[in-house]
């Protein structure tokens, strides 16, 4: 319960500072936030868009959460996601029969994500290279690799600015017609449940959490660190690769990647924030991803009707994460209340 309280406090601070910045730049925070909420959860269309946004975010958040539970800071979802998306598009080059194409798209995407996470795991297990550095470097490398593949190998012969589209038969069907929400959302939900079971109902899951909680004790208990590292990063790579697949195979209208990857870029880093807001618990992550997907959907509305640039959403997100870093946020608040009250009273009297 404290975890939830903490998230709410951090959220409140984030939105307050966000409102302040909106005002500072001369926009109206009330109309901005009203539009934000309506665009996120106002009607069925808005809610469907929020869920569609949440679909890949749940998966990239799981990547981070698995690592975090094991005491590792895996920020490689971004690059692994690119690889997954590229793999899914690559499979569709071969014009396979529908069911095969669909299955292979998913399988190759998941494998590509896992393969891309291998160097991180190996470098960490054998050389002790910190994953923050190796994942960031691999993220940049995969970005340029993606730029190359999009421009040269996967390019749509009719439209040079995008890759070929995933074959119609290999796409997820739409769950709510006329929106971006497809059945892919169920893939993400199932993945979250599997990760939950994995972490809390299996031996390896127990080992991972033990390693994260107290690495010294876990080592004394005979757990092999390198196995846990390998497992954490490969599993993380699988979900990140899957995120790439559900995005290109389950998100209308183009089912392709554009040059510069505008729709794919950032999904990995946003997943990180989602994981933090969901307190690194798969169930928490589902709600956090829907909340955050809602912010992105609502952000578009905010941009349209209150002219506040969509990026405001990321500013709020950054502040929320910054405050979530504080372990005793709840105590901090009561502390502020204690020193704050007399000052307020005094100023009212005078």
């Amino acid at each position: 319960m404290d975890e939830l309280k903490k998230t709410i406090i951090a959220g409140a601070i984030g939105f307050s500072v966000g409102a302040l910045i909106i005002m500072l730049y001369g926009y109206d925070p009330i109309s901005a936030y009203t539009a934000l909420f309506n665009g996120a959860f106002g009607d069925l269309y808005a809610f469907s868009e929020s869920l569609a946004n949440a679909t890949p975010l749940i998966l990239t958040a799981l990547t981070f959460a698995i690592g975090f539970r094991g005491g590792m800071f895996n920020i490689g979802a971004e690059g692994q996601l690119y690889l997954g998306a590229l793999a899914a598009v690559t499979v569709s080059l071969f014009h396979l029969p529908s069911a095969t194409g669909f299955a292979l798209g998913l399988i190759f995407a998941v494998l590509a994500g896992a393969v891309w996470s291998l160097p991180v795991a190996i470098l960490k297990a054998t050389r002790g290279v910190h994953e923050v550095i190796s994942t960031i470097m691999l993220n940049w490398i995969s970005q340029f690799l993606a730029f190359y593949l999009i421009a040269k190998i996967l390019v749509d012969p009719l439209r040079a600015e995008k890759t070929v589209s995933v074959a119609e038969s290999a796409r997820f069907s739409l769950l709510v017609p006329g929106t971006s929400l497809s059945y892919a959302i169920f893939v993400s939900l199932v993945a979250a449940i599997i990760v939950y079971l994995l972490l809390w109902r299996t031996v390896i899951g127990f080992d991972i959490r033990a390693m994260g909680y107290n690495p010294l004790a876990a080592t004394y208990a005979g757990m092999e660190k390198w196995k846990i590292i390998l497992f954490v990063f490969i599993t993380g790579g699988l979900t990140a690769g899957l995120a790439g697949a559900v995005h290109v195979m389950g998100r209308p209208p183009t089912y392709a990647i554009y040059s510069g990857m505008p729709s794919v870029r950032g999904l990995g880093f946003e997943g990180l924030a989602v994981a933090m807001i969901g307190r690194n618990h798969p169930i928490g992550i589902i709600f956090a991803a829907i909340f955050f997907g809602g912010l992105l959907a609502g952000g578009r509305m905010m941009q349209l009707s209150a002219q506040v640039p969509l990026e405001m959403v990321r500013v709020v997100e950054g502040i929320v994460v910054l405050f979530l870093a504080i372990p005793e946020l709840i105590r901090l608040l009561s502390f502020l209340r204690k020193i704050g009250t007399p000052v307020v009273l005094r100023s009212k009297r005078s």
Partner: protein
Amino acid sequence: MNLAYLWGIFLGSLHAMVPIILTGAGEVIGESSGLFNIGLEGIILMSAMTGALGADAAGPIVGLLVGVGTGFAIGLIFGSVCTYFKGVQLIAGVGINLFSLGLVTFWLIHLGVPGHHAVAEEARMVDISTPLGDFSPMIFVAIGLPVVIYVLLYRTKLGLKIRAVGENPQAADVAGINIHLLRLLSTAAGASLAGLAGAYISIDWLGSVTKEISAGRGFIALATVVFSGLNPLLVLLGGFIFGFFDNLAVWVATMPAVQKVIPWQFVSMVPYVVTLLVVTGVIGRVRFPAAMGIPYERE
């Protein structure tokens, strides 16, 4: 391929190394005191923005100072979260990166120039012209600063105190050092240099602000610090290596002959590949302060 050509590449590398060295040398101070700041990337980005606006308003020197001030301010926020409030350093750093990326993109759109803000020609730093080519004055700052920081950390009493709070905060506390304050100021000092690096990129080196302007340089600087084992003089060497490859990528991208053999996308990967390889190669031979990354709590 003549000598002048090679000299041109060398000059380009010198300009490209500056932000890495400034950021890395600053981070050495912070990490010596025990704080690991992965928010440097965001600080560079934010200061590139504020520095450019400062320069537009009142000239390049003011712009650089605004950049330093921005870095210092964000460093204070990061530092207080991670000292007095015992925050998790990696998460706080990620928060700063997200916040900066959001705000700078927001700001650019607000200015009405989505994606790209060019710094006015008269607001840019003036290079020092010599017969050997044009040098930015910041190159000399970047070469001198690591020496100053080396002396500060390893030859002064203050430096000893900074290293003490990173190595054994309990003992330093008993010796009467204010752990939280010293860590806060060390990381803020380091962050100001990242701010200087950001302002240098926008005002001096590239002359414009985009949301991708930091291009992973904050993280490359972190890798350089790992390579250096917290010796600022080795940051200088590491910074030059990365500057060289960074510049090489840009240089190759403009050469049609080379492009036919190797697409530019692969050349652009080189600085990141080299960073990864170098870190892998040196790791294990360097050691870091015992209390790095751990919030200090009195028992």
